[in-house]
């Protein structure tokens, strides 16, 4: 641990500080006190960015697209095609859900990159930590996906077909198929959480050990590439789970 670094904290202290999620202020509504953590505030920032972007991108729609509209139409086209390729003709109904998840996770994982540089004795103006390092956020997303999977399975297979689908290749598979509904959200949540947290801790340690030169290069991999890949993987796995849930028997 170099003494030149501003804070005289050890690596372990820095990492455990990074892991903790601070409560910024407490809101008092109807006699309840609701602690607002920094994750919630970062979520509000992401929501505001997406909201403003959506309004600006769809404000003046033209027959012949220009500017931002081209990008938005390209994204919608891509999402449509992706859904039809992976989920069949019913897949288009899930485009809004999956598209929102993807845009939210992309924005959330890229948001920390706008944190201004600190170090060399001065603190940065504000620090945005990646908000998916909070397991509550990833768990919320995984549970949402699982609710969509459950309801779409019941809707497209019918209640009877849904119950029968537990005994699918063989009846002795029932406990395993039932376990899947627990394992899938667990692995979805832990994958995103672990990846982002791991990358964040590695970047912290690199910034402590070698603050000059190395962090910007590795940040490209750990923040930009890993964040985007995890957003893609989360959306893709959700798509696969939903596709599995809504696939219907061939009635020939």
């Amino acid at each position, binding site marked *: 641990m170099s003494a030149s670094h501003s804070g005289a904290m050890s690596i372990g202290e820095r990492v455990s500080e990074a892991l903790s999620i601070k409560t910024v202020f407490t809101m008092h509504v109807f006699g309840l006190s609701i602690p607002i953590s920094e994750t919630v505030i970062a979520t509000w920032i992401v929501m505001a960015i997406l909201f403003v972007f959506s309004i600006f991108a769809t404000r003046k729609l033209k027959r012949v697209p220009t500017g931002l509209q081209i990008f938005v139409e390209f994204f919608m086209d891509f999402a449509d095609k992706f859904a039809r390729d992976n989920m069949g003709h019913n897949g288009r109904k899930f485009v809004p859900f999956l598209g929102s998840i993807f845009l939210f996770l992309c924005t959330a994982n890229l948001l920390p990159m706008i944190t201004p540089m600190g170090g060399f004795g001065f603190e940065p103006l504000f620090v945005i930590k990646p908000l998916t390092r909070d397991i509550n956020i990833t768990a919320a997303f995984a549970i949402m996906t699982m609710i969509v999977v459950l309801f779409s399975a019941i809707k497209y297979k019918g209640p009877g077909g849904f119950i029968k689908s537990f005994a699918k290749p063989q009846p002795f598979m029932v406990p395993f198929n039932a376990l899947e509904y627990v394992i899938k959200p667990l692995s979805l949540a*832990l994958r995103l959480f672990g990846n982002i947290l791991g990358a964040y801790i590695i970047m912290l340690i690199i910034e402590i050990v070698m603050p000059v030169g190395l962090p910007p290069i590795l940040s490209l991999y750990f923040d930009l590439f890993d964040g985007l890949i995890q957003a893609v*993987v989360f959306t893709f796995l959700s798509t696969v789970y939903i596709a599995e849930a809504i696939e219907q028997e061939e009635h020939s």
Partner: protein
Amino acid sequence: MNPQAAAFIGAGIAVFTGIGAGVGIGLATGKTSEAIARQPEASGKITGSFLLGIALAEATAIYGLVVALMLLFK
């Protein structure tokens, strides 16, 4: 042995799950390159299943990391 030291050793052992993920992702990447070399026109579909595969293979390593972190900073 005091509990703190045991937790540190346990965290170190937990990270050994990375071996499996490394081998798995390596195999998947190799096979993907082979498949794309054989059929370049199917690269889109191959990449899709490759991403799914590495995401699933990587999960074990992530579980190891999570367990290690839980042991270190509980």
